């Protein structure tokens, strides 16, 4: 019996977006990270090519206010020192990039000044050679000025600034454009909103190769299935040839640590510190299988486990 195994070829290809600039490229990063670029469904090596590996950025938060107890214990004292934390991401945990969250700029909490935050960005850039992504605190007014300052202190380094949202994208996008940085375009679990967000940025003058989209990853057990299907549909739409959907997708898997049942004490479900790691690993693996081009992760063991899983999925190169 001869059978024809059904392969699928798509007309579209995901665009490539570069993060980080080396000395030759005008920055000081150790390497330039390129994400996206595939012309098929995720890990479908038998019918498509994917020139760039799925990238993993590890996040660094500048205040432990938002870090769950279990993580503070399992990650050690670095969580108190953002610069040390960033160094550990590079030196010990093998991250492809670092995501710095400037949550302490929050005017209702620490309300750290823009100058202090910008200094932290400079310090992280000096202490590590990883490509850098910087997120603001989520308060539009503060972030507008903050992102302008971040853009200036990281001039030449080709960072990504986040997040541009439908109601707040102009100042952050302008800040990115001023110094040749990229942006992360956020949308709320909806394929049409994701497309709309990209259109807004393109109309504003942003080049497509400067945009990565974040369609919101809901964690395992808290709506993962919605995100899973949104990502699959975005990927299919892009591969079918819609140029406005061909931006790479970034998924923030650190959300797994906000799920109560991932970390609650319940002896029947085993030890919370191990369950939390599984929770983040499975959340990240699902995002990868659905079609993410880049992941944001937090716990080092989750990253190690995910890397092993991805190596098995990518197989012989």
């Amino acid at each position, binding site marked *: 019996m001869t059978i024809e195994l059904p392969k699928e070829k798509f007309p579209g290809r995901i665009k490539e977006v570069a993060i980080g600039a080396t000395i030759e490229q005008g920055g000081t990063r150790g390497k330039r990270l390129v994400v996206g670029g595939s012309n098929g469904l995720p890990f479908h090596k038998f019918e498509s090519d994917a020139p760039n590996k799925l990238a993993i950025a590890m996040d660094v938060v500048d205040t432990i206010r938002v870090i769950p107890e279990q993580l503070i214990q399992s990650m050690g004292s670095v969580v108190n020192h953002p610069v040390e934390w960033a160094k550990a991401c590079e030196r010990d945990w093998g991250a492809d990039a670092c995501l710095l969250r400037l949550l302490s700029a929050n005017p209702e909490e620490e309300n750290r000044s823009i100058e202090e935050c910008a200094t932290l960005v400079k310090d992280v850039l000096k202490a590590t050679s990883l490509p850098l992504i910087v997120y603001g605190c989520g308060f539009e007014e503060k972030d507008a000025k903050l992102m302008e300052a971040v853009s200036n202190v990281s001039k030449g380094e080709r960072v990504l600034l986040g997040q541009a949202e439908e109601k707040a994208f102009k100042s952050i996008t302008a800040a990115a454009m001023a110094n040749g940085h990229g942006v992360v375009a956020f949308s709320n679990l909806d394929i049409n909103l994701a497309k709309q967000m990209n259109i807004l940025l393109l109309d504003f003058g942003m080049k497509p190769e400067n945009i990565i989209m974040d369609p919101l990853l809901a964690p395992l057990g808290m709506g993962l299935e919605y995100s899973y299907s949104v990502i699959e549909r975005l990927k299919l739409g892009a591969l079918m040839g819609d140029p406005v959907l061909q931006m790479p997708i970034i998924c923030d898997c650190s959300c797994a640590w906000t799920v109560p049942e991932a970390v609650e004490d319940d002896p029947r479900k085993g030890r919370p510190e191990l369950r939390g790691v599984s929770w983040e690993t*499975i959340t990240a693996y699902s995002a990868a299988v659905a079609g993410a081009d880049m992941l944001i992760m937090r716990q080092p063991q989750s990253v190690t486990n995910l890397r092993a899983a991805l190596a098995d999925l990518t197989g012989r190169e």
Partner: protein
Amino acid sequence: MTMPTAMEIYKLLPKKNCGECKFPTCLAFAMQLANLKVALEACPYVSPEAKATLEESGAPPIRLVTIGGGGQSVKLGDETQLFRHDKTFYHPTVLGLVADDSEGLEAMKSRIEKARSLSFERVGQMVRVDAVAIRHSSGSTADFLEAVKIASAAPLAVTLMTEDSELMGKALSLSASCKPLLYRATPGNFDAMVAVAKACGFPLVLGGSASLEELAQLADRAKKAGVVDLVLEPDTSTAREMLENMTYLRRAAVKKKFRPFGYPTVAVLGNSLQDQAKLALGVMKYSSMLLFNDEPVEYLYPLLALRQNIFTDPQVPIQVKPGVYAVGQPTDKSPLLFTTNFSLTYFTVRADIEKSKLPVWLLVVDTDGQSVMTAFAAGKLTPESVAKAIEVEKISEKSTRKEIVIPGQVSRMSGKLGELTGMKVVVGPRESSALPKVLKSMG
């Protein structure tokens, strides 16, 4: 599933227009058949060949295979989609632990017991390990058969794992009442194992083939030999091969209606880190059944959550039970909030309340699983329905504040709700992420 059209059916009918089927013409009958309004048996003159052809073309692209009898049965296959968003995935991947006789009888007994005990309530549904597989490898056949006896009495779907057809026959005589799955026929033992399966009528796994072509040949031969309930086991030695083979099988069955691949699938995995990930891969990408040695509960529980997520019907939202929930340890002075019973809304609101570290009563109003805005627009979330929930749940016995915080998006109901309940209505934030701040300011 692609049904034949009325014209395709008509071509196969006797075209006598005898009317004995109660329809005036064969064409009229064909149209009723195409719409599944009548059964083919109503035609006394249809030829056996036409009958076989019609039954074949009307069969689902992937056969439904049942393991077990009575209350313990599990269903495999009958899937029709490549992507869950195109409709839904129907039968959640069956998860089963393997008890191997090389570990000795006591270890096998405790593995069976473990499979039985892995059952949890999650968002109002029971999620559990559904199956156990008893494997003969290097241990004693006496232990194997004893374990088969024990497993067939447990409330689990049972798989018998041996490639020795004689031993399979013995195991079957001890477990026929639980209608087990037989694992497996390979190119090496094909005829003997197929004969065992044919004699008992229980489903049979086909595996050990060197390629998908050979697997298709095995399926074809087994079907011709009269075994109708088959489960396919392609090569899953790496995750990459697993994804490739499972994708080919599902596509060939669903899009090409390639019959030899129109069966559910199984993968048997070990317990390495890679195998853990393959379990998650199998749940997402087309495995009907996964059998594995063992995994820590810290991995199994989130895996069960993943299966529940992936097999949720995208057209029917998961709901939480309406009622009043205590977040933290609220007292009669604690604030009262309400939201809807769409699980995603509930969990988001709950997580945001927990961030405030303040105790709260959270009233979950029944909106048939719709979110706040959708339910409000559809008239399923009204001042009346909220007031009724407040009354039914006897809120006044729990909170004496006479105050309720409502979602900012439905601020328009505040006047009427206050009138109906006599409570002070506080309009909360539009996004629940702002709840910690609002709650802190309420004291």
